């Protein structure tokens, strides 16, 4: 019983690391650009397909293809922000929600047309390996994914707190008008933030590939998880999103273990609704807006 519990917590924590990469991206865009990117999951999906094609055509290891998926998605993000998202900033909820929502629908269905609905998998030498800790086992691929996800989150945190551009980003997030007066170009900052968020999604895609199949709809679960994590972790708060993601990974895994295989999502959604009922401002406090 205790071992099952510990095993479920390990599994949940490991996948929670991936959720964190997606959530941090969503919360970064929300915090800086002030929009919710409904298409964030689709960029995880794109990262997965990039990794899949590099692996199947050129035999490149998913971890090596991080070197492709991260920069490609960074550029895609910066361009998207510059040419598309920018046009709806300050226009109210409807255009902002439905532009990224339409983008999500578009990417999913274009992927469906190009790649069909088939599940694509990449098998690596470490896909089936696991480390045994007494009665518990830790899958190596998930452990690597978790460790790198935490490393990328750490790098983002350092970038936000230790570099001029990162500080400019946080300044623009707090008060875009004053930031502009201080000589910060908000559009450049927004493009970098959007790019960085998508780069994280791309990294999540590559990290998932050794143990998770790619499909056009693969991003949906991750974006739903990210939304819940961002609400739980107080909107726009990077550390909050990270902690909430790990908690949700664990909650989902416990749900699967103790309620039923198809109950993972119920547990997560119920967590969201309960949080709204009890503490509408998120676990860390702040404004529910």
């Amino acid at each position, binding site marked *: 019983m205790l071992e099952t519990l510990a095993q479920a917590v390990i599994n949940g924590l490991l996948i929670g690391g991936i959720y964190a990469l997606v959530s941090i991206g969503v919360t970064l865009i929300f915090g800086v650009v002030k*929009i*919710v990117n*409904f298409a964030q999951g689709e960029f995880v999906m794109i990262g997965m397909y990039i990794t899949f094609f590099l692996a199947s055509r050129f035999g490149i290891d998913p971890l090596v293809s991080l070197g492709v998926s991260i920069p490609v998605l960074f550029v895609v993000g910066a361009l998207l922000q510059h040419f*598309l998202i920018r*046009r*709806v900033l300050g*226009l*109210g*909820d*409807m*255009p*902002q*929600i*439905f*532009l990224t*929502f*339409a*983008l999500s*629908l*578009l990417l*999913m*269905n*274009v992927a*469906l*047309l190009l790649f069909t609905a088939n599940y694509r998998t990449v098998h690596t030498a470490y896909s089936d390996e696991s480390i045994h800790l007494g009665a518990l086992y830790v899958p190596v691929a998930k452990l690597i994914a978790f460790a790198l996800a935490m490393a990328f989150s750490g790098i983002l945190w350092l970038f936000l707190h230790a570099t001029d551009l990162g500080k400019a980003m946080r300044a623009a997030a707090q008060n875009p008008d004053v930031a502009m007066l201080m000589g910060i170009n908000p559009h450049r900052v927004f493009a970098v933030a959007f790019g960085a968020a998508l780069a994280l999604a791309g990294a999540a895609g590559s990290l998932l590939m050794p143990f998770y199949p790619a499909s056009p709809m693969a991003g949906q679960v991750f974006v*739903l998880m990210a*939304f*819940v994590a961002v*609400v739980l972790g107080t*909107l726009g708060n990077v550390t909050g999103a990270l902690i909430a993601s790990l908690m949700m990974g664990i909650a989902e895994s416990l749900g699967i273990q103790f309620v*039923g295989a*198809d*109950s993972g*999502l*119920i547990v997560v*959604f*119920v967590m*969201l*609704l309960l949080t*709204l*009922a009890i503490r*509408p401002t998120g676990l860390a406090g702040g404004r*529910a*807006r």
Partner: protein
Amino acid sequence: MTDKHRTWLWLGALTAIVLVLPLLVTNRFATDIFIRILLFAFIGVAWNLMGGYAKQLSLGHAAYFGLGAYTSTILEIRFGISPWLGMVAGGVVAMLASLPIGWLCFRLRGPYFAIATIATAQVLMLLFLKFRDFAWGAEGTTIPNFGDAPLMMQFDDKSSYYYVALGLLALGLIITYRIEHSWMGYYLVAIGEDEDAAEAVGVNAPRIKRDIYMISAFLTALAGTFYVQYIYFIDPATAFSFNISVEAALVSIVGGIGTLWGPVVGTVLLETTSALLQSWLGSSAGGVQLTVYSLILIAVILWRPSGLLGVFSDVYRRMTRARPPRAEEALLDG
């Protein structure tokens, strides 16, 4: 001829056309498309009451569609109650369900309200997958066929379904028209423009939002009952389909959010596009259809966020008036 006369003339002509349409077009494929247009226009109208006028952008209206569908089906199969009564019962169930759901989701605003509504519809779908004993679980069930039984909302000819759907749409439009021209309509628009400002001038925003959510949920549930009666099948994936939530919002936005006829115009455009794609491409149209829908949506948001209805009324006004229209419809942009 004054504008008012013209409006009545158009409305009369339109009514006459939609009433005789099934007599002129007897092709089953075409009638099926007309029924889909009427049904989705009705769902769009129901969504638009809350999403359009009050700008509470729900992406979870499938919750009420599904509750309506399941209520009438359970009442019919388990208790032999006519879906006509079941339809009203479903509406009431949806209204009651909208109270706790609204209580939770209205704590959030804007995009996070939309996300919370997605979660509620998903939770209901996942729950109905679990309710194997009284709601048939994931396999769903077919609706017993009584042949030509108007009292059980079952008809031999498709044109009867057409008139039922037309009646629903007319109901939705009349309710919208009445609300639009009442104090509630003005309160809704005020909330849609700026909720805090509306509250500051004494609009009881939580109560208005709760009330309009109840009306919107009730109407959406009627559509759910009609739909399962029409396709003779129900399962959680159909009844709580995310596509229902999406299409409800999409037709309203493409047509014109917060306008009486917007959802109707949007549905005619989108469903006609979809039907044409389907006849050209056959079964591969699934991905193509949503690709085209999303491109239309992006185009509308970037170039005409007030919806395509405005484009048509501009053209119409140019044709009927010598002078170009004044900037009055800027109000629609919100």
